[in-house]
C-alpha cells in the first residue's frame, strides 16, 4: 500500500471523522483558525514563523473551502485516491523496465497535477473566498507573499514523495552513514582536499 504521506489529507487537517458533514467542517474550521490567529498575535513574528503561519492559514482555508462543498470534496477525495493508486501500480512494476517507465511517467504527471491543484491553486483560491477572508483576515498582501511559500511547499511535497519511490534515474545507492559522518567531520575540520 502506498504511503499517504505527502498527499495532504484535508480531512485530517481539520481533524474530522471520515463521515463528516459540511457543518462539522465549518464549526471546526472556525475554531481552529481563531486559535491560530490568537497564537500568531502572541508571538514575535520572524521570517521563519511568518512563512509557517501563512502556510498553516492557507491549509486551514483550503481544507474548509474544499470540504464544505460536496462536489469539490468528492473530486478531491477521488483524485487523491487515484494518485495514490497509480503510485502503488508503479511500485509493483518497478522491476520491469518498459512497463515501469510508462507507469512512472503517468504517475509523475498525475502527481504534479494533484499537487498543483490542491496544494497551490485551491489554497490561493480559498484565500479569496468571502467566508475564508472573513475568518482568517487573508488579503492580497498575504496572497502575494504566500504564492512563493506555497510553490516551495508543493515542491517539497513532491520531493518527499519522490524520495521514497524506487530509484530509476540512478542506481540504488548504498550509503554508509558512518562514513558520511566522518567525511562531514573532515570537511568541517578543513583537513580534506
Amino acid at each position, binding site marked *: 500500500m502506498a504511503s499517504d504521506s505527502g498527499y495532504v489529507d484535508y480531512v485530517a487537517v481539520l481533524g474530522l471523522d471520515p463521515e463528516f458533514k459540511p457543518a462539522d467542517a465549518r464549526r471546526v474550521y472556525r475554531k481552529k483558525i481563531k486559535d491560530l490567529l490568537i497564537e500568531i498575535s502572541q508571538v514575535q513574528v*520572524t*521570517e*521563519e514563523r511568518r*512563512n509557517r503561519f501563512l502556510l498553516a492559514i492557507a491549509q486551514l482555508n483550503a481544507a474548509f473551502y474544499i470540504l464544505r462543498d460536496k462536489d469539490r470534496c468528492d473530486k478531491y477525495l477521488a483524485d487523491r485516491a487515484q494518485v495514490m493508486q497509480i503510485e502503488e501500480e508503479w511500485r509493483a512494476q518497478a522491476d520491469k523496465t518498459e512497463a515501469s*517507465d510508462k507507469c512512472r511517467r503517468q504517475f509523475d504527471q498525475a502527481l504534479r497535477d494533484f499537487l498543483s491543484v490542491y496544494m497551490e491553486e485551491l489554497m490561493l483560491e480559498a484565500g479569496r473566498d468571502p467566508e475564508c477572508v472573513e475568518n482568517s483576515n487573508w488579503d492580497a498582501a498575504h496572497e502575494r507573499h504566500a504564492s*512563493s*511559500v506555497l*510553490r*516551495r511547499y508543493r*515542491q*517539497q511535497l513532491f*520531493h518527499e514523495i*519522490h*524520495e521514497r519511490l524506487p*530509484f*530509476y*534515474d*540512478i*542506481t*540504488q*545507492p*548504498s*550509503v554508509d*552513514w558512518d562514513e*558520511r*559522518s566522518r*567525511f*562531514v*567531520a573532515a*570537511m*568541517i*575540520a*578543513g583537513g*580534506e*582536499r
Partner: protein
Amino acid sequence: MARAPQQKAQVTDAVIAKSFAHTVATGDIVNFRFLFISYSPLRQDSTEDINWPKYEYLLPPDENDALYRSALDLMKQPEILAHVRAQLQRQGPPQLPWEPLMRLADNALRLSKLTTAAQAYEVLRVRRRIQEEFLAQADAALDAGDIRKGVRGYVMASGLDYDYAAFPEPLPAVPNYQERVLILHGEYPKNPEDAVALQTPEVHVRTGLHYLLRNAEIAGRLEARPLALRIEFLEQWIRQTDPQWDEFAARYREACGLAREYGERLEREQRAEQGQQTLADEVEAARDTRDPRGISAALSGRTSLELEWWQYLKDTAYRHPASALFVTRQVVAKDVEIIMPRYRSDSELVRRLGLEAV
C-alpha cells in the same frame, strides 16, 4: 558535394574511464551528464568523436592529480565500467551510477563547488540528510567553542541549500546578494534608527545572519545562542566567505572620511544660508566641488560617478555581501541619492571587522 561519413574509431574502456574520472575529480556534474546524452562523443553510435580537438576539455590535463587518480580507480571497477558501457549503448534516459556521482559530489564539496555538490546529492536523494549532518556537527563545534569549525559547517550547509520555489523546477539556492541587498535596503530610512546599520546590536546581528545565511530556518538555529557568540560567528563567516574583506574595510574607512568632509561642507552651506559664513568657509566652499557620489564610488571601488545608488549598492554587495550591513541610503539633493557608510559607535562587530574610522 557532401563529405562521405568517416568510420568512427572504437571508443575504448580506457577513454570512457578517463573522461568520467575527469568529471568526477573536478566535481563537474554538467559534463558528467553530458557524457551520457544521446550525442555524447563516448557513444559508439554518435556522430560526435571524443578524439576531436574540441573535446579535449573532457580529458584530464594532469593525470597525476590525486583526486583524478582516485576517481580513475573507481571508474575502472568492472561493475561500474560495465554499467556505464550499458548506458552508453542504451536508447532513452540513462541510469546514472551512484558511486561515481557520490564521489563527484564529495569532490565538488572539497573544491567549494557547493551548488554542484547540492545538485549531485539531490539526485542521490541524500542532500537534506547531509545538510543536516553538517548543521549538527557545526552546532556541536559551536557548543565546544570552536567558532571556526562551526562557521565552516554552516557555510557548507547553507551552500547545499535548495530552492524549491525556483521556476520551472527546483534548483540549488545560489548566493544572490546583489538581489537580496535591494530588499534589505528597499525602504528609505525616514528615521536614523530605521537604517539597517543603526539597528540595536541584537537586531543588527539577527538581520545579518538572516541576510548572509539566506535561509531563515538555518539562521534561526543560531538565535538561542549568546549575542557575543553570534557576533564572533558573523565575523568568522564574513572573513571565511570574503577573502578580500580587508580591502573593502580599507575602502570603507576612506569612504567614512569622505562622508565626514561632506558633512562639514553641508554645515558650511547651512551657515551660508543663515548669513553666518566666515572667510574660511568661503575659501573652503570655492575649493570643494566634489560630487557626493564619490562616497558611493569609494565604497564600491569604482571610479565612475555616474551610477545610481542602487547600482553602487548591488555592485558592492555582489563582491562583499556583508557590506550591505554597514551602509545606508542618503538623499543629498533633489533626485540624487547615494549610499554611504554608517555604523553604531558601540558596535562590537564593526570593531572586529576593522570598519571603524580612525
